[in-house]
């Protein structure tokens, strides 16, 4: 039942109806929901591939699928999750919805380009889907040459075109965010009053704008090599396959930060609001995002420690990779310091934030293992690396994404999610995640290589544990899917500011009107100044 109050007031969801009002919308909030639906679809597709992988790995004999099919499964899992879920996930949904609202703007600077970038993601996704249905692709998500250009007998070109097109979606989102933050801030919204979610999305946009074109040109070269045999990656003509790895990782390492920086922005918001304290060391947290974006471009060589790169280059890249730990640690320490003497409440988003801090710390510290030359030679291409980046991507990004979704769900839909179920699912996800991926650290350290489906018997126990964890994790992800949809109809009606938060997005009704604010906001306070939240003044410290 829709309550009468909700029927009375016009907001962005009921301002117009019909399929055209969605597919041709220029409203950043509706486009964010289009993205939400799209990336959710890709998330469950990528999850389906992961399920098949985990079922196959239950037994050491590789009996369920052929090696060829297995190669395709892990490739399509990676391609779907990285390019069509993780990269657009937080910026294109939560960022798209809330970045303009947080700075007090009516919309992004270029609403048409915003819609175009959603269409580009969909078209790119259709190419990738076509490749998967037509027979799949088996190169690994990294598309290493010369296998991808010369030998692979699968749908490399269609997949590459899909990623190329989706890349432009990412570039245009970044461009839109940068211009919006520079030119669309409300009166009084200075750079150092921006919520940290905006800072981290700004830093992300810098990477999207500077890195993604390099991936695009790399794909063009792979395409030319595969179709016209131009020789650039072909040793027979004097070309160098390792050049591909340099170009690829010049984008794909920073891309890791495209995935995790917005997540860090979400966590800054959550930690502050649920401990009712301003983020400790605001400026350090803000600049650490920019520092990660810059440093991210200087470390790609740590993916080439065993790919004929000189030892000296390896030492330099190893050294530089350690530097990334500094801004990352600044964030983690500052979040922890924010909690100190805070008035902490354990709402679902905060549970996800705690999950993020723990799992990201493990993911980050094991990142130091793989960044050091000596250890990396031992664990290269093992499950240790798999576990490391899943702790960052799933334990980090998806935890924050889920936390952010719960936190902003009342604003996006005007309905509260069911708190009890949400807490239960957060717990299930946390346990399922650790059971899935912690055994993989041990597997990798003992020498289990990635991308194999036949393995020695002694690894079976750990693989079975991992698969068991994956089933728990799957249940954890299905639960929010169900109760979020349930809440659209049966959830309690949300007030404008159910959490007593300070951001501008909470100073307008839920769901927001078409132009976001009934009255143009004027900003007079720093971000996270809880003394400004009416009726909920909390003495701090």
């Amino acid at each position, binding site marked *: 039942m829709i309550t009468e109050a909700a029927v009375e007031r016009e907001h962005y969801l009921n301002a117009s109806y019909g399929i055209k009002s969605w597919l041709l919308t220029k409203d950043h909030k509706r486009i964010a929901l289009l993205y939400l639906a799209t990336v959710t679809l890709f998330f469950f597709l990528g999850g389906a591939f992961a399920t098949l992988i985990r079922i196959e790995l239950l037994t050491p004999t590789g009996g369920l699928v052929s090696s060829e099919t297995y190669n395709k499964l892990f490739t399509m899992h990676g391609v779907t999750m990285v390019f069509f879920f993780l990269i657009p996930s937080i910026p294109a949904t939560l960022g798209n919805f809330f970045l303009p609202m947080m700075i007090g*703007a*009516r*919309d*992004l*600077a*270029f*609403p048409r380009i915003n819609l175009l970038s959603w269409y580009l993601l969909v078209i790119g996704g259709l190419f990738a889907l076509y490749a998967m249905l037509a027979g799949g692709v088996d190169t690994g998500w990294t598309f290493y040459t010369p296998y991808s250009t010369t030998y692979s007998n699968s749908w490399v070109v269609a997949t590459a075109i899909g990623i190329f097109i989706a890349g432009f979606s990412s*570039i245009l989102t970044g*461009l*839109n965010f*940068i*211009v919006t933050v*520079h*030119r*669309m801030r409300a009166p009084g919204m200075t750079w150092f009053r921006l919520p940290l979610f905006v800072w981290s999305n700004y830093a992300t946009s810098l990477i999207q*704008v*500077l*890195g*993604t*074109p*390099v991936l*695009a*040109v*790399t794909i*063009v*070269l792979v395409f*030319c090599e595969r179709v*016209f*045999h*131009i*020789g*650039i990656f072909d040793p*027979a*003509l*004097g*070309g*160098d396959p390792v*050049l591909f790895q*340099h*170009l690829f990782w010049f984008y794909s390492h920073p891309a890791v930060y495209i995935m995790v920086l917005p997540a860090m922005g979400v966590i800054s918001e959550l930690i502050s609001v649920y401990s009712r304290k301003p983020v400790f060391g605001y400026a350090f947290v803000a600049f650490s995002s920019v520092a990660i974006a810059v440093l991210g471009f200087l470390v790609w060589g740590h993916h080439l420690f065993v790919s004929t790169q000189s030892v000296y280059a390896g030492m330099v890249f190893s050294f530089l990779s350690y530097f990334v730990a500094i801004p990352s640690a600044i964030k983690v320490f500052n979040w922890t310091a924010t909690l100190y003497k805070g008035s902490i409440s354990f709402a679902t988003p905060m549970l996800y934030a705690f999950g993020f801090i723990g799992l990201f710390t493990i993911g980050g510290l094991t990142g130091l293992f793989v960044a050091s030359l000596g250890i990396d030679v031992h664990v290269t291409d093992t499950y240790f690396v798999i576990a490391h980046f899943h702790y960052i991507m799933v334990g980090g990004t998806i935890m924050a994404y889920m936390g952010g979704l719960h936190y902003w769900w009342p604003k996006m839909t005007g309905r509260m999610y069911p708190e009890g179920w949400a807490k239960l699912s957060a717990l299930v996800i946390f346990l399922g995640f650790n059971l899935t991926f912690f055994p993989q650290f041990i597997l990798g350290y003992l020498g289990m290589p990635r991308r194999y489906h036949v393995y020695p018997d002694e690894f079976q126990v750990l693989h079975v544990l991992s698969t068991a964890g994956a089933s728990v994790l799957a249940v954890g992800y299905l639960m929010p899917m169900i109760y979020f949809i349930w809440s659209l109809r049966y959830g309690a009606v949300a007030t404008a500011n159910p959490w007593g938060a300070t951001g501008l997005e909470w100073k307008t009704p839920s769901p927001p*009107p*078409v*132009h*976001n*604010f*009934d*009255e*143009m906001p004027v900003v007079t306070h720093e971000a996270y100044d809880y003394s400004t939240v009416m009726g909920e003044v909390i003495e701090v410290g």
Partner: protein
Amino acid sequence: MASEGHAETLALREQFDTADQQKDASTLGMWVFLITEIMFFGGMFLAYSVYRSSYPVVFAVASSSLNAVIGAVNTAVLLCSSFTMVMAVRAAQLGQRRAILIFLILTLILGMVFLGVKAYEWNEKFVEHHVPGPTFHLEGVEMQGPAQIFFSLYFAMTGLHALHMVIGVGLLTWLIIATYRGRFSAQYMTPVDIAGLYWHFVDIIWIFLFPLLYLIDRHLR
């Protein structure tokens, strides 16, 4: 509602408060886009640098087989087109519709001349078997593989540049039609302005391509 205080026009879209804000945003958007373009071409320039330093002699010989005179003429054509583009932007700032039209059409013609000359050059490569593939052969070098890579890069880089020229020609055509219909004035000429930025950028890319591809081993005698 107070926050949607104005009707949408071309010069002032509903998300902006003032026309100045919109112009600033559009211009910044184009600059950011051009930065992405630099990174896009950057990958090709990197590949060029790697292989030129690996095979300096082959690259010198292959470069000398290109026709530097035609390349120089084309460079001059492109520089002139940048000049006429600047004049079009100036005319737009002053709101002189006729002058905008004339200079835009001149820019368009010069752009087409460049593309025509480029097509002639590519055709020559097919005649001389300088197109990478089974029939590729370059006189005067032993290592045919790296010579092919030079020409692969030549085609990839000039091809990508020409693609940008074609897009530029499309933009110019659209601008000419819009000018003819009187869409621009001294108050609203942002599209002319940012199309100008794009055109100059494509021009600058060629300024780098010309010496890197044509002039590796040329000396005044």
